[in-house]
C-alpha cells in the first residue's frame, strides 16, 4: 500500500509537471491554425484548419516586402557559421588541452572554466564597445565572430578527450611517429563523433535563440535574425498590443504565433533528434567518466 501509494503520488507529480510543460508548446503549434477570431471563440486546444497556416504565412510576407524570409535566411546562415566555427575550434582546443603538451595548460584550463561560468549576457555591452571600435557595428560578422567563442564546448571536448579516449592510444600513436596533427586526425577525430553531436547541439540551441547580443550589435531590419524579427512584429503590429493601433498590415495574433513557431520548431526538432544522448551530454559537463 505504502509503495503503491508513493508510486501513484510520484507519477501524479511528474505527470502534472510534464503536462504543464508541454501545454504551451501544444498551444503554440495549434494557434496559427485558427483565425484571430477563432483564437478567442474556439477552445485553446481546438484545431482550425491547415489553410490558416498558409494564410498566416502569406500575411507575414506583407511586412517590409517579405523581410521575414530574410530573417529566416539570416538565422540559418549565422547559426550555421557559428555552429561550425565554434564546434571546430572547441574540439581542436579541447584535444590540445587533453592529449598534447602545451605550455601553461593549467592556466588555459582555468581561463576556459571562468569564461564558461560567466553568463554570455554579461559581456554584451563590453562586446558592443569593441564592435563599435572595430567598425563592425550592424554587420553580420559582428554576431558571427563574437558568438563563435565556445568555452563550454572546449571544456566538454577536453573532458571527452581526457576520459573517453584511452590515453594509451595517444601514446601508441606518438611512438609510431605521429605528430599532433596526425594524432588528432587519425586517433581523436574518428572517436569524436558523439562529442561533435553534443557540441553542435549546445551551440545550435544557444545561437538560434540568442536575443540580447544580436539585438545590441545589429541595427538594420535586413540584418536581423528571426528571434529579433519576432520582437519587431511585437512592436510593429497590434497583435500583442492593441494600443499600437490598427496598421494596414494583415498581421495579427495567428501570424505572430506562426513566427514564434518558426523560432521554436527547429529547437524542438533538435531536442527530439538528440534525446538519446541528451542526458549523457548534459552529464558530460559534470565529472562522471
Amino acid at each position, binding site marked *: 500500500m505504502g509503495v503503491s501509494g508513493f508510486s501513484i503520488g510520484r507519477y501524479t507529480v511528474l*505527470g502534472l509537471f510534464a503536462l504543464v510543460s508541454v501545454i504551451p508548446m501544444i498551444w503554440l503549434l495549434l494557434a496559427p491554425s485558427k483565425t484571430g477570431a477563432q483564437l478567442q471563440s474556439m477552445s485553446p486546444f481546438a484545431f482550425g484548419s491547415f489553410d490558416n497556416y498558409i494564410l498566416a504565412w502569406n500575411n507575414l510576407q506583407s511586412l517590409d516586402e517579405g523581410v521575414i524570409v530574410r530573417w529566416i535566411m539570416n538565422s540559418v546562415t549565422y547559426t550555421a557559421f557559428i555552429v561550425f566555427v565554434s564546434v571546430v575550434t572547441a574540439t581542436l582546443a579541447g584535444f590540445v588541452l587533453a592529449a598534447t603538451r602545451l605550455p601553461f*595548460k593549467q592556466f588555459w584550463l582555468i581561463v576556459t572554466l571562468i569564461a564558461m561560468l560567466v553568463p554570455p549576457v554579461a559581456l554584451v555591452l563590453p562586446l558592443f564597445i569593441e564592435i563599435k571600435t572595430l567598425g563592425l557595428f550592424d554587420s553580420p560578422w559582428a554576431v558571427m565572430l563574437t558568438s563563435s567563442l565556445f568555452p563550454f564546448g572546449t571544456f566538454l571536448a577536453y573532458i571527452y578527450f581526457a576520459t573517453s579516449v584511452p590515453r594509451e592510444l595517444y601514446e601508441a600513436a606518438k611512438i609510431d611517429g605521429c605528430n599532433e596533427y596526425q594524432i588528432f586526425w587519425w586517433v581523436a577525430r574518428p572517436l569524436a563523433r558523439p562529442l561533435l553531436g553534443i557540441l553542435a547541439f549546445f551551440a545550435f540551441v544557444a545561437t538560434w535563440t540568442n536575443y540580447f547580443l544580436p539585438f545590441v550589435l545589429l541595427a538594420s531590419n535586413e540584418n536581423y535574425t528571426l528571434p529579433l524579427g519576432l520582437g519587431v512584429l511585437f512592436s510593429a503590429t497590434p497583435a500583442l498590443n492593441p494600443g499600437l493601433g490598427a496598421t494596414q498590415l494583415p498581421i495579427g495574433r495567428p501570424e505572430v504565433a506562426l513566427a514564434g513557431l518558426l523560432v521554436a520548431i527547429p529547437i524542438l526538432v533538435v531536442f527530439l533528434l538528440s534525446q538519446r544522448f541528451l542526458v549523457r551530454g548534459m552529464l558530460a559537463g559534470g565529472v562522471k567518466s
Partner: protein
Amino acid sequence: MGRRRQWHIPSWVMFSPYLFLLVAFGVVPIILAFGSSMGTSMANKDGGLDNYWLVITDFRFLPALRNVAIFLVIYVPVMLFVVTVMAILLDVRHGSRNKYLMLALIVPAAITGSVAILVWYFMLEPTLSPFRDVLNAMGITQARQIWNSGNMAFIFAAMAFFTGAGYWILIQYGSLQSISDEILEAAHLDGAGPVQMAVHIKLPLIKKYLVFMAVLTFAAGLQLFVEPQLISSSVYVGIAKGWSLNQVSYDLAFASANFAGAAALSLLLLLVCLVAGLLLIFKTDFFDRSEHLAR
C-alpha cells in the same frame, strides 16, 4: 631541443583559433569596457573611477537592484527545490516512461527569448489561455490583473524557471545516476524507503551539483534583460522600464548616451559573476576531478 620545439608547434596551431576567439571576444572586450568606464560623460566631465560611484548612486540603480534581488529570491530557491524534487522522483525508478517524461520536461526550453514573451503573453491572457479555467478559478478575468508592476518579479521568475528547469532536471537526474549501486543497495538492505533514501543518501551525494546549479542560476538571473525589456518596450509599454540592472545599463548607454556609466555598471555585474565562477572553481570540489585529469 629541436624535437621539443617541434612537439609544441602543432599544439599551438590547433589551439590558436580558440585562443584567438577567447582573447578577442572574452578578454579584449573587458579591457575596452574598463577603458570606457573611465571615460567622460555629461554626468561626469572628469571621468575616472567616479563613474562607478555615480552609477551606484544613480536614481535608477537601487530600484533595479531591489527588483533583481526579489526576482532572485523567488527564482533561485524555487528552481533548486523543484528541480531536485523532480530529478529525485524520476530517479526512483528507471523505467522506459522516464524517457518520455524527460522529453516532456525539456520542451519549455525551446520557448525562450522573444518566443517566451509571445507564449507567456497568451498563457496569461485570461480570454485566450489554455490555462484560462485555472486563471478564472483564481478570480482572474483580465490580463491587467496579472500584468501589474507588483507581479513582475513573479512573472519573470516563472519565465526563467520554465526555460531552465528542463535542462537542470536532466543534469541533476544525470548526477543521481553517478551514485554507485552498492551504496543504494546497502541503504535498501538497511530498510531505507524512497524518501529516506532521497534525503539521507542521494541529496548529500549530489550536493556539489546543486551548489553548481545554484551559483549558475544566480549568475544568469542577475543578468536578466530580454524578458523585461521586450515586455516593456512593445507589449505592455513601460510596465518594466529600467526594471533590471542590465536594463539600466542599456538605458544609460542608449538612452542617456552615458557609455562610461553603462560600461561601469556592466563591469560591476560581470565582476559579481566572475567572483561566483571563481568560488565554484577554487572553493568547491566541483572541478576537482578535471584538474586532477590535467596532470
